[in-house]
């Protein structure tokens, strides 16, 4: 991994420069993408463990209690997406700015720091009880642990800030000294927003309502705010490259999409403020604005299809085009449709905190963020490996992996939705509601089906990795 990177960075060392890369320093993206895929595998393995624990409650107990598996599952997701965003940043910012990255060396140091810190955190989750981890990492000095998705020890959070700052410094210097495009500006805005809103993870008041209120400033303003800017910029970059459509057109779309994202999504945060102690008017604001949140995602779908239909070239990387179209459709379904499903306050009153929420979370994260990162990897990785596109055989395998993972995710979502509807019906409606655990027992059939779909997803992911090793004949 490092040897090939350094070889690409220093062609004088004996190996020819990668002719596919416009700027040699783009090569630092490669280890970021490889780490992202590796962590993705870990995420899915722990997802399968949790899926089994839903039906065989004592599976791997006490070695890996459910809460530990869930922390690993969700934290690996966040970290691999961050690796993907960073890799995308290191790849596309030099190309957009038309100059070499400010400091490829700093990018590699940040890579290793982030990977080691991330790995140590995961080992910490698995090796010791969480309370012990909190004690040995000095949580008492600044207690930030133990909140959903922000379970990382405070020192890990500080490490994330340091890595993010070096990354932003590196990219900002590159942008400032080079050409400024809409894509690079939107990407940078999204990434800076990501770092700034993460700072709210250090605010953990004793007051539970305030705690929850500002916790959403990290979680919601990330995934339904600034991450969509990053997603839009990444998608726009790939579409410019693979379709050859005039940049002016692509960039106009990008602005309209992200305008709608923030116009609907910022006040849309209110859909989390229905039942946590906040005033009742949030039911009106939250319902109205978040009901509009599907619009930017629908535009994302139209954007991808429009650009591909108007393409001025036939890019040999068909797989990347497929992922780009796929992320448009699946983000609309997962984030847009499945989000709308339970976002109106009277509906959410019944569905809040059930498997409906879980179903939405799965398809939204896969459709919007996992798939856009894979879109970027699918486009950039062949170039980073010195060819415009992979062989036909390799692309066929990759497209199979696309369909396996995507269809499996549709079924995971449908089974969880079915479980969620029944849960709401049995536990919250009617005159004789069942208890939580009695309800869960009734749902096990759907949890088994979800686990089966999860196994198919995992097979698709393994096939995706296989596609990197399928050689086949060179295309030209």
């Amino acid at each position, binding site marked *: 991994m490092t040897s090939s990177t350094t070889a690409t960075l220093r062609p004088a060392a004996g190996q020819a420069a990668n002719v596919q890369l416009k700027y040699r320093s783009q090569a630092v993206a490669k280890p970021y993408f490889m780490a992202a895929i590796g962590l993705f595998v870990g995420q899915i393995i722990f997802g399968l463990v949790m899926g089994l624990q839903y039906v065989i409650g004592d599976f791997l107990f006490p070695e890996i209690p459910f809460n530990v598996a869930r922390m690993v599952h969700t934290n690996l997701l966040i970290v691999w997406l961050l690796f993907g965003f960073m890799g995308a940043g290191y790849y596309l910012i030099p190309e957009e700015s038309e100059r070499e990255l400010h400091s490829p060396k700093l990018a590699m140091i940040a890579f290793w720091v982030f990977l080691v810190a991330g790995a140590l955190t995961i080992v910490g989750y698995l090796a010791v009880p969480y309370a012990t981890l909190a004690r040995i990492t000095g949580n008492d000095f600044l207690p930030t642990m133990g909140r959903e998705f922000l379970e990382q020890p405070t020192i890990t959070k500080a490490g994330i800030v340091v890595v993010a700052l070096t990354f932003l410094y590196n990219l900002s210097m590159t942008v400032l000294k080079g050409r400024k495009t809409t894509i690079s500006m939107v990407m940078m805005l999204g990434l800076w927003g990501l770092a700034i809103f993460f700072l709210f993870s250090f605010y953990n008041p004793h007051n539970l309502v305030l705690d929850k209120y500002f916790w959403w400033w990290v979680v919601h303003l990330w995934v339904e705010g600034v991450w969509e800017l990053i997603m839009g910029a990444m998608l726009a970059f790939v579409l410019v490259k693979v379709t050859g459509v005039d940049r002016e057109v692509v960039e106009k779309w990008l602005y309209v999409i992200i305008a709608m994202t923030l116009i609907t999504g*910022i006040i849309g945060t209110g859909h989390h403020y229905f039942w946590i102690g906040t005033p009742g008017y949030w039911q009106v604001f939250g319902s109205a604005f978040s009901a509009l949140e599907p619009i930017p995602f629908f535009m994302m779908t139209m954007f991808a299809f429009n650009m591909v239909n108007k393409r001025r070239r036939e890019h040999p990387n068909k797989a990347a085009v497929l992922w780009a179209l796929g992320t448009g459709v699946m983000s609309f379904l997962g984030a847009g449709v499945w989000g709308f499903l339970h976002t109106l306050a009277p509906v959410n009153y019944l569905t809040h905190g059930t498997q409906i929420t879980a179903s939405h979370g799965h398809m939204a994260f896969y459709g919007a963020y996992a798939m856009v990162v894979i879109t970027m990897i699918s486009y950039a990785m062949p170039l980073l490996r010195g060819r415009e596109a992979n062989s036909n055989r390799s692309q066929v395998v990759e497209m199979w992996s696309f369909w396996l993972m995507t269809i499996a995710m549709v079924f995971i979502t449908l089974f969880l939705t079915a479980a969620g509807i029944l849960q709401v019906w049995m536990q919250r409606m009617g005159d004789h509601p069942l208890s*939580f655990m009695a309800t*869960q027992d009734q749902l096990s059939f759907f949890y088994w089906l979800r686990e089966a779909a999860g196994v198919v997803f995992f097979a698709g992911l393994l096939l995706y990795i296989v596609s990197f090793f399928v050689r086949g004949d060179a295309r030209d």
Partner: protein
Amino acid sequence: MSTRFTKSTARNIFYGGAVFFFLLFVALTFDTVQALPKRDNRANLTEQVVRGKKLWETNNCIGCHTLLGEGAYFAPELGNVYQRRGPDFIKAWIKAQPTGVPGRRQMPNFHLTDSQLDDLVAFLKYSSEINTNHWPPNIEG
């Protein structure tokens, strides 16, 4: 999109919209923070509750349970567990874990002292008295 709708128009809508709605969000946040003292049960936010919240966090309870509907969906909602089960049951239950019933979902034993159990129950009592606009729909959570 039509040619009259230019990229700079789109850009202006983006920046204008983002700034306007973020400022509106900040204003609503300000109003919410002003309104919270009447809703968030801060009068009962004692030292014991603060200790209980920290125990809640450092044992990663949110990794299986929901609290006011947020968290994991593997184990029961605890925002109203104080009303559903009462303080004595909660403490006895936590002490009795894991049940070890084959095939059942298992909760680890966190080896909490009696005073820690009291802290945790105080936190759950405080949480249960927050004005949540009548959520959850019934006692089962």
